[in-house]
């Protein structure tokens, strides 16, 4: 979606402000929101692409005025409410008002280390071969789906070079909607700064994105 999350190339956001000796979390509620988000993945049954869409799918003004863990919290509540695991009334009350829905499995303390160490690899076996070779010129398609996509606006329509054929990976545009993993070849595509930003761009800058094959066409 062309939402507030797609920030590459936007103006007016001001300078980057590094915080010396920054703590991992800035408030106790951030810790709990972070941990709840991680822990609910297992009983909730959603995937990372659904989570990302739940976070970004809101008015841009709202997205940009929320702190990062506020966005995480809002995304988590969206996912919970969509699956009727929790209602807004229950959050207001601070108590369960209905019996729990059956869930497959919850994250137990004994699972934590193993679950984190295993992670969620996204590479998949395939019988297909990659359409593009290293060095090939490709154009990022001009696509504007209202659903989740990982092709940022600032590269759409621009010509780049295949730098690396990464492998066959879960396709977020499908996975985020529940349409399945639909694995696709994934590439690192490198663009010249001036191709992206015009004659005023910095000629010494190159920018790459990782792009799935359905995002690309021969150029």
């Amino acid at each position: 979606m062309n939402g507030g999350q797609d920030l590459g190339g936007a103006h007016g956001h001001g300078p980057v402000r590094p915080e010396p000796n920054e703590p991992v979390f800035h408030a106790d509620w951030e810790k709990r929101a972070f941990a709840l988000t991680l822990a609910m993945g297992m009983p909730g049954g959603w995937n990372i692409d659904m989570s990302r869409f739940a976070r970004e799918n809101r008015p841009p003004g709202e997205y940009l005025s929320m702190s990062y863990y506020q966005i995480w919290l809002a995304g988590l509540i969206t996912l919970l409410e969509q699956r009727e695991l929790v209602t807004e009334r229950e959050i207001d009350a601070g108590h369960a008002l209905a019996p729990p829905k059956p869930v497959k499995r919850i994250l137990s303390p004994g699972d934590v280390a193993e679950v984190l160490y295993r992670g969620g690899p996204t590479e998949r076996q395939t019988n297909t071969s990659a359409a593009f070779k290293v060095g090939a010129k490709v154009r990022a398609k001009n696509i504007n789906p209202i659903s989740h996509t990982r092709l940022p606006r600032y590269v759409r329509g621009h010509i780049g070079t295949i730098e690396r054929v990464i492998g066959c990976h879960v396709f977020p545009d499908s996975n985020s909607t529940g349409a399945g993993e639909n694995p696709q070849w994934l590439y690192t595509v490198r663009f010249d700064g001036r191709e992206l930003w015009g004659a005023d761009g910095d000629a010494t800058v190159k920018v790459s994105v990782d792009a799935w094959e359905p995002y690309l066409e021969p150029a």
Partner: protein
Amino acid sequence: MSGHDHDHHHDHDHSELSETQLRVRALESVLTEKGYVDPAALDLLIETYEKKVGPRNGARVVAKAWADPAYRARLFKDATPAIAELGYAGRQGEHIVALENTAKLHNMVVCTLCSCYPWPVLGLPPVWYKSAPYRSRAVTDPRGVLADFGVTLPKGIEIRVWDSTAEIRYLVVPMRPAGTEGWSEDKLAELVTRDSMIGTGLPKSPQDISK
């Protein structure tokens, strides 16, 4: 900033945070009552990323790459197993690529679409990495972003920005500082800053740590 302004700003933040704090607490109560989460597992998740997983992991990887040519070769060939040799793997680091800074090329990592970051080696991302200023400008004006960090690179050096749009996570391996010949990996690791592994900073010099 005057004392009054400071106090006002502080109170404002405080009341906003309280509202969110109450909502998170309410949500945790509901999820716990329903048996969807075990609070002990939540504590363990927090402890892991507060105490165990952080940029010291990445610093050990970089120091080893500086000191051990065979390791360096393995790291640039296929970083995920090379990093797993040191025990670092998993969530948000399932597929890692190591990027080599040279005298001619400086790498910088961003996620313009969200906050993708190599957790097993760097821990959770700092606020600025997830912020609109960094995500918007890193791809258009990386030299300007570096200036915000007080870093100036030589004019002719190429800057390569990696936008983490898929599940590949990038770790920058900065150049080994001069004057560190014969140093142990432990001592070298002290020079490796978090920002130098994102590409918004440079490693410390031997003088910096002898102060």
